[in-house]
């Protein structure tokens, strides 16, 4: 099983990196760029576990370690690797 996790800043939280890259893209001539947000993408390979269990465990991993829930939110998808 593979967990694909996206961790991004919560709405309204300043994203300095996104802001700077946004400016850089505009400066490079990509005027069509209206906004940039930068987050993390994690892929976690899991040993044989049921989907229900994985769901619970991965959520827990995100809350405990992978996301900083004070300023970040996360979402994930479980993909079978068989």
């Amino acid at each position, binding site marked *: 099983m593979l967990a694909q996790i996206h961790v991004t*800043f*919560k709405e*309204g*939280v*300043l994203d*300095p990196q996104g802001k700077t890259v946004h*400016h850089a893209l505009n400066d490079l001539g990509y005027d069509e760029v209206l906004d940039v947000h930068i987050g993390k993408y994690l892929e976690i390979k899991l040993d044989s576990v049921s989907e229900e269990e994985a769901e619970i465990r991965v959520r827990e991993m995100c809350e405990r370690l992978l996301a*900083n829930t*004070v*300023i970040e939110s996360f979402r994930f998808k479980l993909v079978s690797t068989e």
Partner: protein
Amino acid sequence: MDKEPEITSQLVKDHGLTGEEYRRILDLIGRQPNFTELGIFSVMWSEHCSYKSSRPFLKNLPSEGPNVLQGPGENAGAIDIGDGFAVVFKIESHNHPSFIEPHQGAATGVGGIMRDVFTMGARPIALLDSLRFGELDDPRTRFLLNGVVDGISSYGNCTGVPTVGGEVYFDSCYNGNILVNAFCLGLAKSDKIFLAKAGGVGNRILYVGSKTGRDGIHGASLLASSEFDETTEEKRPTVQVGDPFTEKLLIEACLELMEFDWVVGVQDMGAAGLTSSSFEMAHRSEAGVRMDLSKVPLREAGMTPYEILLSESQERMLFVIQPGHEEEAVAILEKWGLDAAIIGEVTDESGVRIRFNGKEVVNLPTFPVVDGALDLKRETQRPEYLDRIHQLNLTELPHPPRGDKALIKLLGSPNIASKEWVYEQYDHMVRLNTLVLPGSDAAVLRIKGTKKAVAISVDCNSRFCYLDPYEGAAIAVAECCRNLAATGATPIGLTNCLNFGNPERPEIMWQFEQAVQGMGDACLYFNIPVVSGNVSLYNETKGEAIFPTPTVAVVGLIEDQTKVMTQGFKKPGHRIGLIGFTMEELGGSEYLKVLFDKTEGKPPVLDRKHEKQVQDFCLELIQKGLIQSAHDCSEGGLAIAVAESCFASPAEGIGATLDLESTLRGDALLFGESQSRIVISFPEEFTDKIEDLALSYPVDFILLGKTGGSHFTVNINGREYIKQEIESLKKIWKTTLGSYAGQTT
């Protein structure tokens, strides 16, 4: 725009204002405030902004001196150091935000204190941080330690300001309330110190820096003005994210702007953002201000005037400039890629009037907002715990025949162990000024273009303050100055950060009163002006307050930058001596805590006169080039001081043998924390000179032994008390903190 909420007693309460305070507002402005105005009073009258509990006490701190250019009351204090330069410095807390989100909390703390300094026209050249965490086995401690250090590292390093020193302590009293106190020192031309003034009618108000977002509304002001409880989690969105890159640009752009004489005043937007900066500037200049919030650069759509005024978005400043220079100013800011906008002007009215989308949304006189909060006459009462804990009976304490075990345990205590894991994550060398790197008693920075150097130390033994807040605070001042003396510096000024529990409890206010008194008396005695400071109250969770922690940072001056002393032994075969006098004092010591898990007894006695002589003597030895190392005795006492001098030698470890004669208990002699002691080393041929000089002061001075070999050996009255290999001792001392921080669980 949505209709504003109606003012109800519940709404007033939600804004942290008491009924009495609300009635006072009605009295002062003669009408009901609207919603936005209520928000303004709420932040400006909060404990954090108004100092309503602490101000009556702070008046007792001495703040004057011939070289003081700016004392308390501005963004930071300033002291003339000669040669046309002034140092500008301040320390400030970011405790509550750091507990909620350690990385961003600590990072924005660093950003805030730097802005306080460069607001005054000074280039920040040094940062220090005083950190306190809960006990090691508290599950959150490791997470908080890593997060805070990471936050300071990422912010300070990116802005190119070296973090040159600090302190780190662990104690269970900080389990629910960590302390993150950040210090910044800047260098300015002594005749170009900028103040937060609005100046004359017609001057323009220039907004500079990041755009305003919804972050941190009621952040610093409310967070820092109430205790933590179960609802703290809900306050989370008030945490702000820092942008150190923008801060770096802001430093450069602001310093460039301040070269021009059409810049009238500057104020950073810290706690309570645009509100406090505009009201305070107007108030100080007895001027009026008109602003149009529609002109403020915004990050988010649909923000209300309430939100714009109360936002605590980081990396923003307010400038007041003379009319006619708007374009020049904006051009400089654009060159640095910063947002800038003229958002208002200075008027001859006596209040602040703010418009938004063509409508007036605020019209308030400045006095009620800035100075209207009544000083609270908080009750004080001596806490009962004191009588209980003062009873420490040393005869009941086991007294082992050898000290090896205690030494090893102390070296592995995170309070004593090397803080290398921390300061290696900080760029402590950038700008090429750091003459004494972290790891010695005080940091030393040369002042380019002069022969001078400044030394900085930050200190507080909060265990002593818990046992006796008056003595504890005085000891903090003395120890800080002693740290400076050990590097060859004379104290010139002090800043403090007073971290205490809930001021509504009379016992806490008693601690506060005592500590301020102790600090003030010590400063008077040592003749050190207190030029800036910060108060952090409500460091308390579910009724458990932290130990009183009046952190002090003292800045010292070294006239000749080539005469700087460090704590490491330099060569084998040098003599080791002790300036000062050792008594049987184990109260409040790290030894008592680590070996017996006790925080008891009375703190060591501080004899101020003796302290001063010890410091002066040490300074003279350094001046005359008679000694090769100096290190003050603090936590862990004499044994730890000598061990640290062994570890810090350039040869990665020189041994030492001490031959002591004493009637004291061995543990008190070696691990007791008697004040006013400095360990020195020197070439044998200077022994007589040093002894003669000691007699002339007079100051206690004894020979302890010699450097050399690969062991740390201590004999007491001819019997071996400690013998350990330096290499293995050093390993414990060096790796403790890092291996703790590096574990995951």
